[in-house]
């Protein structure tokens, strides 16, 4: 068994998916942020709404901002969140 990835959700994304954090094994064939988003979207209506195409979800991998093309590996910390609004 390979190491799971940790997935974090923040702000309205957290509220929409209904969880702040989960751990799961990277699904077969999911090697990038874009592929993970496709996979999450198919999980249920909360996820589908949170990751609706054309939305403004941002992603960080191992605490650095990521793009849809960023590759994923077992053990990664992957975070999804809206555009930031601090300051």
């Amino acid at each position, binding site marked *: 068994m390979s190491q799971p990835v940790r997935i*974090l959700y*923040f*702000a*309205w994304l957290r509220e929409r998916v209904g969880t702040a954090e989960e751990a799961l094994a990277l699904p077969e064939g999911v090697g990038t942020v874009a592929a993970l988003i496709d996979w999450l979207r198919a999980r249920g209506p909360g996820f589908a709404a949170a990751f609706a195409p054309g939305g*403004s979800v941002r992603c*960080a991998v191992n*605490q*650095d*901002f990521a793009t849809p093309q960023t590759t994923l590996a077992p053990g990664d910390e992957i*975070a999804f*969140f*809206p*555009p*930031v*609004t*601090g*300051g």
Partner: protein
Amino acid sequence: MATVRVQAEPFDVGAAMAALGAGRNDIGGIGCFVGTVRDTAGGRKITAMTLEHYPGMTERAMAAIAAEAEARFDLLGCTLIHRIGTLQPGAAIVLVLAAAPHRAAALAATGFLIDWLKTRAPFWKKESFADGAAEWVAAHDADAAAAARWQHG
């Protein structure tokens, strides 16, 4: 020379400024910005503002922003303090300090730091309104434009 902090408690501007300048006499000016909670948004009354963040990444992002400011400007040090949790109108949210031999660098760095902090550090604001509603603040195009001023290359 950067100090970066995320905290629930209020900050003391005078103490932070004193700490930045402690033991050195080469500073000609300190630029500073304090962001505060306004009591209205889009014409609606706000009763509170709650700030969520991404522990771990927040500190990394703030340290990277401070390092970028120190690389771009002739700074002798800078301080970034951002509060989290629930704040009342009038409360201070964020403190930026930039110390330099001359005022132009201190003031330019202050603007840079707050612009990048608003667009590159993982904080999210939720506003609670007088009518009981609570809504996440949408990112402002103006903030993205302000941050884009500092792009180069």
